[in-house]
């Protein structure tokens, strides 16, 4: 018997094969690698967040554009070994405040990539298996999500920890709207508050026991400055989940991390102690070319 989530995945697969036949093995590869739990999680996201026919077609189109953009940028990066843009102002103008780009490509692309790109899904599993239990076990389950993006990790925290509350910050009005809709779709709106804020320029006075900041660092000219602000927002003995993309060009990636050690060095410089980490790779290289990677860290404040 086909469950509703599986029906959503089948529908997505059909639409993806129609729009982009060269991506026709994307769903089957993920299902084969990650099993029925993946199908359920992906299908629930499609059903809750994407919804009606027109939005569904647009979301698939957005994902196709996002994936092709990333692939084309990766090909250029393999030759040039530098990211295309180097300033935050360029990224903000081209991406974060560009409604058509954000809603037509970037946000649906990122949302769906959490399930369709293996290294993104592995990062999600690491969060669910190693960070969420810390929240669930705590007396104080307040979470701050800095750089909320699509709201995906806010939603994961609220669904995975039913007693948790979440404050989310982002500099993009389009991200914040999308995040609010995602959180609402999963019933989390009563426990979530979103605010447009640059936490470097205007660091909140509040401190949280749990902090999440997923794939923000590579979007910044000065990641250490941002990490220092995050440390200020984390309560002593609190726990943070901080991740970064490595050798992974995108329309708004500015800071090029060459390896995991480079990210770790910045975390330590900013005053964090690394408790655990993992690295995931997008695909095996065909030769010796750089491939996109994700590094995820669970850290606390260093009091040394």
């Amino acid at each position, binding site marked *: 018997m086909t469950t509703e989530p599986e029906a959503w995945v089948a529908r997505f697969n059909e639409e993806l*094969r129609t729009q982009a036949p*060269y991506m026709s093995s994307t769903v089957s590869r993920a299902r084969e690698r990650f099993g029925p739990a993946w199908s359920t999680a992906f299908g629930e996201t499609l059903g809750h967040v994407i919804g009606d026919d027109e939005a569904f077609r647009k979301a698939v189109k957005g994902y196709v554009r996002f994936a092709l953009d990333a692939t084309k940028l990766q090909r250029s990066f393999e030759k040039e070994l530098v990211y295309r843009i180097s300033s935050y102002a360029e990224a903000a103008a081209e991406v974060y405040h560009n409604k058509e780009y954000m809603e037509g490509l970037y946000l649906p692309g990122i949302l769906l990539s959490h399930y369709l790109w293996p290294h993104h899904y592995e990062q999600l599993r690491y969060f669910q298996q190693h960070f969420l239990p810390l929240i669930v076990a705590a007396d104080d389950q307040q979470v701050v999500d800095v750089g909320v993006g699509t709201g995906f990790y806010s939603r994961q925290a609220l669904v995975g920890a039913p007693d948790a509350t979440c404050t989310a910050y982002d500099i993009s009005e389009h991200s914040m709207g999308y995040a609010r809709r995602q959180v609402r779709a999963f019933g989390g709106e009563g426990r979530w508050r979103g605010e447009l804020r640059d936490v470097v320029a205007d660091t909140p006075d509040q401190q949280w026991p749990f902090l999440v900041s997923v794939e923000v660092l590579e979007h910044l000219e000065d990641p250490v400055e941002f990490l220092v602000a995050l440390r200020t927002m984390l309560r002593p003995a609190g726990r943070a989940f901080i991740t970064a993309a490595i050798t992974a060009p995108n329309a708004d990636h500015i800071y090029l991390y060459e390896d995991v050690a480079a990210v770790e060095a910045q975390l330590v410089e900013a005053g964090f102690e690394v408790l655990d980490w993992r690295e995931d790779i997008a695909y095996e290289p065909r030769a010796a070319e750089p491939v996109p990677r994700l590094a995820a860290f669970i850290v606390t404040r260093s009091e040394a």
Partner: protein
Amino acid sequence: MSIDRVRAVFRDVFDNPTMEIAPGLTAQDVDGWDSFNHINLVVALEDEFGLSFTTDQIAGMANVGDLVDVLNDLGQDVSW
């Protein structure tokens, strides 16, 4: 301009010297035509014709006919 130059690019990208193309040919008909090779194909066509495709144009290339349409939209006048 005939389709020969486009055919030559396909044969090179897919390493198949006898490959034939037709308007309705899609990735599902060709071994190895995944998103990685789709971009290889796009980059090779850009180099061959001295063009640059937008992401929307690349995303719209669901079959070879679509691809030829984009080339013609960009002034290449490719005929079958």
